[in-house]
């Protein structure tokens, strides 16, 4: 019977920095453990330690005992066996998929492991994950949800005995989250799921281990009580299952953006917009499945895409902050990034960045790409702030943020909305519930305004069984 058992005394990266201390975790057959915790708590490091990657590939060290489906991955011989025994799904499909087509991606796993019937198995797996019709398409033409399904197919096509998943819901719309939860529920071996959005998995896991600063801060066993959930939230885990819609502020200080009767898209229309407005003084959320045209709308408002027909009116300057903040950075240091933004934008973003990152200037000599995910998010917003936008467009701004960073973001958006209309494209029901003043839904090619309660119902019912 397969089991995952890890008793880690300490784990260090090659730099010598200690990231885990006294962490123990066990998942037996049919047992699912969720590892949660705020950003930088050591969740992904735990996964790298348990799989042996930290020792065997990254030059780090792990002291302790690990049994991964019968092998010790800390030893070279055991590490060689890990791919046969374990399926590993990484956080970002873009960073997991190595091959140009779905068929090659699935075949890659099977051929590496020497399966004689690789081709036949690969097709069966693609069929099961609904990708057989796109087996020979460029991976790049798949939607976000299809890419996630492909990683699930490629990670489990060899029938592993145990499964490890790192932030499997990151960047996914709630509809695909629902599929992912179903997949997790359907696997019969031991599973470890690393996820800061614990709320999605509380119905399917047996235990929640919360990490903080590389230590185990708390453990919760099923059934999870209201007290457990409150405690998880206190520890920085997004665990609240029921969300309540806050009262919209209802302040339209001035209309900044207006679209009437436009069709948006690239070569073909993706989204029809009969009536869209965004005002200074409010936060407008745009929700909808992956590929429904949310980003297309934001890009049209930013002037990066012309509408196929109709008119997009924006008063003043619009600034678009992409989902991946890394595309916002053009210079080798934070200092230059901020200085260049000040020079061309006209406002000094340093005070805002220092306040958000709590750094007092200590981060400014670093390359932007070496900052933590949260710090990069703050930097990308600080750069936008320097340009004094009257319309601030944020694409999935809460991705990868823990509860504390999320709360800071909501406060920031509220504050920025006093001088600019803020439009966010998001899958995050919590952001819709707690921050949005008005909501538009991109569904089946049309953008329609919906009430907050209705939007919440839409997002929440999409992933629940």
């Amino acid at each position, binding site marked *: 019977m397969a089991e995952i058992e890890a008793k880690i005394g300490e784990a260090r990266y090659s730099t010598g920095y200690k990231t885990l201390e006294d962490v123990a975790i066990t998942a037996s057959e049919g047992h699912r453990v969720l590892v949660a915790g705020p950003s930088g708590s050591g969740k992904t490091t735990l996964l*790298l330690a348990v*799989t042996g*990657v930290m020792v065997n*590939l990254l030059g780090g060290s792990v002291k302790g005992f690990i049994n991964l489906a019968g092998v010790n991955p800390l030893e070279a011989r055991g590490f*060689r066996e*890990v*791919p*046969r025994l*374990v399926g*590993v799904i*990484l956080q*970002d499909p*873009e*960073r*997991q*998929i*190595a*091959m*140009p*087509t779905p068929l*090659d991606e699935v075949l*890659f*796993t099977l*051929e*590496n*492991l*020497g399966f004689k019937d690789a081709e036949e198995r690969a097709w069966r797996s693609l069929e099961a994950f609904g990708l057989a019709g*796109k087996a*020979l*398409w*460029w*991976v*790049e*033409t798949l939607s976000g949800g299809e890419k996630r399904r492909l990683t699930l197919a*490629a*990670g489990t096509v060899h029938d592993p005995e145990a499964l490890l998943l790192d932030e499997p819901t990151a960047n996914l719309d709630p509809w695909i989250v629902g599929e992912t939860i179903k997949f997790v529920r359907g696997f019969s071996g031991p599973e470890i799921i690393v996820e800061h959005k614990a709320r999605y998995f509380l119905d399917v896991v047996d235990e929640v281990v919360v990490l903080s600063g590389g230590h185990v801060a708390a453990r919760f066993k099923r059934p999870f009580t209201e007290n457990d959930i409150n405690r998880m939230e206190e520890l920085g885990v997004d665990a609240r299952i029921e969300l309540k819609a806050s009262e919209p502020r209802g302040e339209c200080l001035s209309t900044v953006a207006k679209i009437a009767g436009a069709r948006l898209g690239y070569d073909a229309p993706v989204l029809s917009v009969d009536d869209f407005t965004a005002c200074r003084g409010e936060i407008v959320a745009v929700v909808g499945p992956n590929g429904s045209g949310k980003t297309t709308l934001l*890009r049209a408002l*930013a002037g*990066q895409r012309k509408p196929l027909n109709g008119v997009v009116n924006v008063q003043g300057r619009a*600034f*678009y902050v*992409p989902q*991946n903040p*890394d*595309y*916002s*950075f*053009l*210079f*080798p240091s934070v200092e230059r990034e901020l200085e*260049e*933004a000040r020079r*061309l*934008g006209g406002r000094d973003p340093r005070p805002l960045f220092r306040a958000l990152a709590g750094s007092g200037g200590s981060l400014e000599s670093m*390359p932007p*790409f070496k900052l933590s995910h949260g710090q990069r998010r703050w930097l990308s917003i600080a*750069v936008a702030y320097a*340009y004094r936008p009257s319309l601030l467009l944020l694409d999935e701004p809460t991705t990868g943020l823990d509860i504390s960073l999320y709360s800071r973001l909501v406060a920031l958006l509220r504050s920025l909305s006093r001088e600019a209309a803020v439009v966010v494209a998001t899958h995050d029901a919590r952001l819709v519930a707690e921050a949005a003043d008005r909501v538009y839904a991109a569904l089946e090619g049309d953008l329609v305004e919906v009430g907050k309660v209705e939007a919440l119902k839409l997002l929440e019912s999409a992933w629940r069984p």
Partner: protein
Amino acid sequence: MKLSSYWSPRGGPDPAYLLLYSFSITLLAVVEESPRALLVLFLVTGVPGLTLGFLRFGRMLVLLPLTVIGAFINAMILYYLGVAGKDSPAAASVGPLVIPWYAVNATIVIGLRIASIAGAGLLLSGLANPRDVIRSLEALGAPKGLVFSLAYALRLLPLLFSELGEVMAMRRQRGYRRVPLTPGDYETIMLPLLSVSVQRAVWVGVSAELRGFRLRRSLRRGLRRPGRWEALLAVALALQIAAVVLF
């Protein structure tokens, strides 16, 4: 976009044979100096390859005549600087400008050489999809690291294009010029692309290892039994080798 329907005709030659053929023609074109032998290479491989390429890439083939013009200008500059073809007789003159036989010959040789090599490449990419070509490399016994790198490059190309679009849009939004001119401009484009690519490469490496890449054994299967297409390639290659030997 479906990769196979876009690229490969059904029942075409085995990509492994095609790869060997294209490689051989490229080699012959690089080492051969005789215009007559190069003309044979051009007629047998260049013409069908460029025709196929024109059907697929259309206007991109304009680059080819430009290359030939460039070769002519280069030969003329070398002649007038006295670096090459000093004693070459005049082939023609346009006003005060004398065109030596040296420049004519050099242009013909370089033009035929480039057209033959381009034709061989276009024949390969026109008759086999890149995925099959890469897999055929593995079947021919190429090292798995090389094959993986090529397959990953194929995965990355469209991704890099879309990331380049993101970075260019951000540059414009931040008030930088639309067309990059200075090294600093290029730095602001390359820096985010490289940083994102490096991070991704590390994780793809981890993903590949966790899916058993180090356990991968050679999928070498040798060449399949040749059919009509392969026989045609063999005849064409024999003809071209004969031309190189005879001329």
